[in-house]
């Protein structure tokens, strides 16, 4: 098994936020915490591009390096996880992360920062698999059920791929070869096919 990775295809993402909703629902993420979010460049301008962002499970993760209590670890599948029992909520990982992945729920009065929460690639945490403690702290462990992250599996346009990096790279490569490389890679033609040669409105037909 190679490394588990996410791959976001900006040509396909339609900013539906289905991945965000799937993640929120799957793990019962509290208000104010977004493990995943959709970022749009040039919003409202023709040709805008969206991309779904969360923890990218870096091969050389800066969050792991800067953590003062060393609460991060990497699973054998390359998933970056952390032990919430050790986390002190200092926020160093947030400053180190280039994707803004670490989230901090409000804990107590005056906006006190709680323990860090982030995408687990639906792999739970160091608590026993499928235990109540694991679900409460880290969310559902889909990987231990032989499933892939809910966000990727839920994505309607398959803009977000998740899983074995070799396999999803092959899928993406195949996709890019099929859709071409010019102006046809995005827009109406790609989404709905080429327009009919026939006129849009037939005589006597509904407009």
């Amino acid at each position, binding site marked *: *098994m190679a490394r588990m990775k996410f791959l976001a295809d900006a040509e396909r993402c339609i900013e539906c936020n289905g991945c965000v909703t799937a993640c929120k629902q799957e793990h019962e993420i509290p208000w104010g915490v977004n493990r995943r979010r959709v970022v749009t460049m040039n919003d409202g301008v023709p040709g805008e591009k969206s991309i779904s962002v969360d923890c990218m499970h870096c091969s*050389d993760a*800066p969050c*792991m*390096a*800067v*953590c003062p*209590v*060393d*609460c*991060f*670890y990497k*699973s*054998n*599948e390359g998933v970056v*996880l*952390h*032990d919430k*029992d*050790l986390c002190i909520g200092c926020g160093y990982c947030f400053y180190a992360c280039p994707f803004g992945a670490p989230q901090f729920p409000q804990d107590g009065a005056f906006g006190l920062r709680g323990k860090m929460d982030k995408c687990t690639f639906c*792999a739970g*945490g*160091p*608590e*026993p*698999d*499928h235990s109540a403690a694991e679900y409460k702290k880290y969310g559902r*462990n889909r*990987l*231990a*059920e*032989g*499933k*892939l992250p809910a966000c*990727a*599996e839920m994505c309607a346009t*398959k803009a977000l*791929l*998740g*899983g*074995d990096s070799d*396999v*999803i790279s092959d*899928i993406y490569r*195949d*996709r890019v070869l*099929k859709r071409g490389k010019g102006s046809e890679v995005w827009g109406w033609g790609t989404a709905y096919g080429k327009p009919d040669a026939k006129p849009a409105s037939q005589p006597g037909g509904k407009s």
Partner: protein
Amino acid sequence: MNRLLLAVVAAGFALGVAGCGEQAEVTVYKQGKYQGKPDKDPWDNDQFKSDKNAWEKSVKARNLSQNEYVRITGN
């Protein structure tokens, strides 16, 4: 005169090698050692009963089903 020349040469030499003492300013992160609880592999549970191959097969099937070109044509 010789002393002045010597001083100029010494100053020139000092200026010339001044750049050699520059230190790299790129931070090199050092990984710490994980201090938390150990985690088990995803196949070490009641569902897969430590059968890594069964787990890999299940995940691979899910992986490949993300390729809708294959799903549409049935290839």
